[in-house]
């Protein structure tokens, strides 16, 4: 049973969902925002610290939600490390496209996020994967709150 969900619930996702490596509030941070999907009850908070040049030096998160949202947050932290805000937002757009289509033609350097590509086959779960990104982009834009439900 469940062999057919291994595309999404693969080893990387299960590992990251159960034992996230980057979960936790940063001691010092420059930006923060909450992501909230009130219909389903998923919540995530992200904290960002910038390097002197304005790139992302460190990201932390706290999430209450499903394996997909937690794994996505954990993988996101690594993917955006050292990137500028503009670069991070562009990456979010490519990630969102991948989550919706399963395809990622222009995704060089995207390997860490690829385990989430299968979420496209679970339309009601795409918003779980994108919620942490909405929260991160909100933090970069100076907004306090974000959702991926609308």
């Amino acid at each position: 049973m469940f062999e057919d969900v291994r595309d999404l619930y693969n080893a990387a996702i299960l590992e990251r969902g159960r034992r996230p490596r980057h979960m936790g509030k940063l001691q010092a941070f420059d930006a923060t925002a909450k992501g909230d999907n009130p219909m389903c009850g998923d919540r995530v908070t992200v904290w960002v610290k910038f390097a002197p040049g304005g790139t992302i030096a460190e990201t932390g998160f706290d999430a209450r939600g499903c394996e997909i949202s937690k794994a996505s947050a954990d993988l996101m932290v690594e993917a955006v490390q050292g990137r500028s805000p503009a670069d991070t937002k562009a990456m979010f757009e490519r990630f969102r496209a991948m989550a919706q289509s399963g395809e990622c033609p222009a995704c060089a350097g995207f390997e860490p996020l690829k385990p989430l590509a299968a979420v496209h086959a679970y339309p009601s779960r795409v918003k779980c994967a994108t919620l942490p990104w909405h929260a991160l982009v909100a933090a970069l834009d100076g907004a306090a709150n974000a959702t991926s439900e609308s």
Partner: protein
Amino acid sequence: MNDTVQSFDIKAIRAQFPILGEKIRGKDLVFLDSAASAQKPRAVIDAMVHAMERQYANIHRGLHWMSERTTEAYEMARDAAARLLNANDRSEIVFVRNSTEAINLLAHSYGRGILKPGQAVLISGMEHHSNIVPWQMLRDSHGIELRVAPITDAGELDMAGTEALLADGRVGLVAITHMSNVLGTYTPAERLVALAHQYGAKIFFDGSQAVVHRRVDVQALGADFYCFTGHKLYGPTGIGVLWGRRELLDAMPPFLGGGDMISSVAYERSTWADVPHKFEAGTPAIIEGIGLNAAIEFVEAIGYPAIAAHEAALTDHALSKLSAIEGITIIGRAQDRGGVISFALDRAHAHDVATLLDRQGIAVRAGQHCAEPLMRRLGLDSTARASFGIYTTNEEIDALADTLGRIREFFA
């Protein structure tokens, strides 16, 4: 209505629901999400198709054969709803789109029209958003206080706390669910009616869930208002019922303005049609009304004693099977409860549970169930919910329980 339990042939009942023959990714559909919306029997589908193919025109206004026949067919739903609730008179049945619209109608016409600033509306801590938000809007626009009756950890209404909130006599209306869509709890309706009236309040029940599972007699209950929605009662979407005692409806101003709700219109002043048409502006959901009539006739043919007995047995079976799963928490332990069961697994989030169940063809709901304040009260972000209908079988519940056990192993 016959009070003896008629023979309940589950196979014959299931055969009347075409969708139950569908396969989900090659597996039998196990539909355990009836509390969100129930499936439709052949009789409802046929009645609606027949209306569109053979007997359709606008109602209440045409002078021609098609309009007259369609009006008759549509108005039969009003008689059916009056029978279903044992209303004193068919004019007490107001058609609305759904329970949400019924409550908005009540909040607007009774709330703004009859209640006075300084009075209060009392809801409970286990309401659906639809029985919270319209009252908040009334509070903010009309100076009405909104009070929330507490619930116990078992998921029952705290009756002492409820009475304490009524004691100052300022509550003009109690607006409360008859059955929780999250906990499956029935509220003690008779006691609530007595309490409300003792302290001078009118009482409205949101019967969206309750009317599906047990006989509701609004006169015996002594309620003032009651609502339900067609699509949870095996009928179509887009049609629901607000019942109110005639003298209360008569005193209330209209909700929406427009055609069908007027007696005469002039630029200086218009006058309103009588109840119920005063509350039914515009062309109504004609086909859906005809479908609702068929749904009520379907329920009546089986009979509430048989429905209630079947669902009580299912609920007992489900509580026993689910409780035996390691690491499961059943949310709410009310004494008087029906076939709506929320639960959480220790190792898997509700969304993951719902996704994995879905891959086995088992449909449940997961999330906050449009009851965010209740979830907060229970200290939960999300639960999975299995809910039963007239067509649910013990074998389906066994499949749910077996699969939940395997999901727990999957996330070991």
